[in-house]
Structure formats: C-alpha cells, structure tokens
C-alpha cells in the first residue's frame, strides 16, 4: 500500500516542480529580452473594471456565505460516515442500513428546519 503512496508523493513533487517551472518560464524569458517588461504606475494600478478604484478592496461580506459553509461542514462529516458503510454494505446487511437511515434522519431534522425557516434562500 505504501508503494502507491510513494508514487503519489513523488508525483506531487513532480507536479509542483512542473507548475512552478511553467510560472518561471516567462521570468527567465524576460531576462533574455524576449518577454517585455515596462512597468509604469498606470499599468500597475488595479484594473478592476477599468474605472478608478473606489474605497477599500477587502470589504465585509454577506454572512450567508458563512452559513452555507457551516452546513457544508456538517454534511461533509456525515458523508465521511457514509463512505465506509457504502463499501461494506453487502457484508454489513440490513441492520446497518437502518442505522444509516437513523443517522441521516437526525441530520435531516436540521435540514428541514433550515428549509422551513427560509434560511436556505439567498438574501
């Protein structure tokens, strides 16, 4: 098993080196004067939509993003429980199916509550 992860680890190193290489090529070419490099203040200002930038960039965001991320986290953990069960369902039999139904039903209480309270809508 560890051989396979050896492949994955070495592949990760190769991929990171490859992507870094792709980002570095233009920098190398810049020193060979093939890629132009003429910065000036106007060019290096923030583009945004073409107009002058107004106000700060890092503005505060809608709380709803955070709400969805929280629900996502809870459901993600639920799904993690479902994977081993799905692999071994044939051996585990009907009892485990009932157990998973209960597991999902408990979580679904929260889901139905969120739906009823209309917080699943984007505001």
């Amino acid at each position: 098993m560890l051989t396979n992860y050896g492949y994955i680890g070495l592949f990760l190193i190769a991929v990171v080196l490859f992507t870094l290489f792709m980002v570095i090529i233009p920098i190398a070419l810049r020193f060979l004067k093939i890629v132009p490099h003429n910065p000036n203040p106007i060019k290096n200002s923030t583009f945004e939509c073409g107009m002058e930038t107004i106000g700060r960039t890092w503005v505060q965001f809608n709380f709803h993003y955070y709400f969805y991320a929280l629900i996502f986290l809870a459901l993600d953990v639920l799904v993690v429980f479902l994977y081993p069960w799905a692999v071994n369902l044939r051996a585990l039999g009907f009892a485990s199916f009932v157990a998973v139904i209960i597991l999902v039903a408990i979580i679904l209480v929260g889901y139905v509550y969120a739906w009823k309270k209309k917080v699943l809508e984007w505001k």
Partner: protein
Amino acid sequence: MATIELNIYNLVNFQSIPPDWPGGFWWHWLFFTVVIIGFVLTMVMGVIYIERRGMARMQSRLGPNRTGPFGLLQPVADAIKVLLKENIVPDAADKLIHWLAPVVAFAPALMIFAVVPFGNGVLLADLNVGILYVVAISSVSTVGIFMAGWGSSNKYSLLGAMRNVAAVVSYEIPLVLAIVGVVLISGSLSLNQMVVAQDVPFILLQPLGFLLFFAAGCAEINRSPFDLMEADSEIVAGFHTEYSGMKFAMFYLVEYAEAVAISAIIATLFLGGWRGPILPPWLWFVVKVIIVFFAMVWTRTTLPRIRIDQLMAFAWKFLFPMSLFNLFITALQVLAGWPTELVWAMIIVNFAVMAILVLVWSKLFFKLGRGRIEV
C-alpha cells in the same frame, strides 16, 4: 538493457500489461508522470479546440479556422502568444500570494489523474481510497482560486472567489452523495475496481446518479450555466481579472484541466472507463472523455447562466434531496441482492424511478418559488 527493452515493449502494448505491472518502481513512476502530464496538456489543447469549434457551429459561426488545417494549430498559437506576453502584477496586490495562486490551483487538477485508470491496472497508483482521494484533492484547488481572488486586491476578483466558494460548498455534497451510489454497487473505492465491476455501464444502473453528478460536477468546476464566478457581464472576469501572460494562461489551463478531470471521472464511474470492444482500452477512455466533454459544451451553449439565488436553491433544494433518494434507493436494491440475471428489468425500473422523482420534485421545486428571494 534487457529490462529496459521489456519495459518499452510493455509501454507500446498497453493490453499486454498485467494488472500488477511493476516495471520497477522508478520506471513506473517516471513513465506515468510523463504520460499523465503529457495526456492532460494534450487533452486540454484538444478540448479547447473542440469547445471553440463546437460552440461556433452551434452558434452558426465558423470559429478559429485560419491556423493550420481546420484551425487545429490555434491552441498552439495561443500558447506561444500567451508565453510572450508581459507579466503585469498590480502594485496593490499581495505579490507572493498572487504568484503562488496558479500553482496551487493547477497542481490538484493534475493530481487527480494519478488514480484514473487508462487500462486494466494501467494507472500511477491504484489507491484503496481512490475516489475519496479524488474528491479530497479536488477541494484543494478552491484554495488556489481564493488565493488568486485575494492576492489581486480587486473587489471583483474577491467577489468571484467568494462566489466560487459558495458554489463549491453547495455542490460538493450532491457530488459526493452521487458517488456513494456507485460505491454501493461496486463495493470498492478504487477506481480500477469500479471499472472492473462495470459489466453494464453504471449510467444504466444509476441514471439519476449520473445526472446529479453531471450537474454538480459542472457547477463544481464553474462551467456554464453555473459560471457565476466569472460572469463577464457582472464581475469583469472574476478571480483572474488581474492576471496576465503566463499566469493567466495557467488559470485558463486549470479551467480546462478540471473539465477534463471531471469528464474522466464521469467516464470512469458511469461509462465503463477503459472497457469496450475492439479498440485498445486507452483509446476507449479518451473517446469517452471527449464524449462527456462534448455534452458539457452542449449544455453550455444551450442553457443561459443562472442567478446566484437560483444556483444555491438548485443545489440545496433540488440536488441534495434527490441525491439522498438516489442513495437510499440504490442501497435497498443492493441489499435486495441486485439480481444479476434481471439486470435489464432493473435498468428499466431505475429509469422509471429517475423520471418520476425528477418530475415530482421539479413540480415541488417550482411551487416553492425556485429559490426566488421572498419579499
């Protein structure tokens, strides 16, 4: 010398490779590293060509047809052009993060292919947790996109990145639940085992799961009609507004590499991967990937972009309940013994169940206001 010759012989004849082809640790690794990177780059160029020409045909245009025969060299020309462009980084940007973002976004897209089989046992690493690895690794590229949005110090970039996070967060759950259906039938998480288990392609046994996975997968990689994060008419170009030259090209690559990755996963999970008559396995695999990608292009040209409230409602009020139904129906069928001699009856039943569920739930969905903001 003899071992090298043997290896080269093995490389040429994919079909003669036994499932546990070792070929020596380093040879195996080197071969598949080169093959995977080459495969992804070639496929990306191919699918960009297919998308541009196919979309042009669907919109009664010609598309790029000047560079080389039928415009086949257009992606090459684009690559050279973009390589020679000036690299502009805004003064206000967080330079390091701006520079690292393409790397963090691109590496996971390539990493996915480490577990995708090109033939029986022809893959870099046949992990026991294969599909879970794919789901886990693909979630890392969100971080790269958020780094790009943040590092640009641009309101629209940040908004694009936030929308991306919202889309990924919402569509990840239906995506992984749709996969659980396939895992239930094949009884394994290894992608190669899943393909081996597909005597009948799982698209027939899991039609609802396929639809859910396709929709959620398109949303996950932000393809139209779910491409809110780079909606040109609203937020310029989303998270890569401030990128130019090679780094912009990297994000372009990421977009298509992820599309190829999702197509490859769909082909492996639902269309039987490398299995097929006559043609060699890897060719079947490539053909299936291109078919799935073409379906994505088709949906892109057919459907208009949806609003963000519709995006969220579609995930939470339509796909999520449907994927739970799919999961439990499949589990019951597996528990009932999945009668192998009655496969065709099962297929008909599954298609009927899919049609009824989709129809009934869409009625309900429309009645509940399609996620429209309630005033």
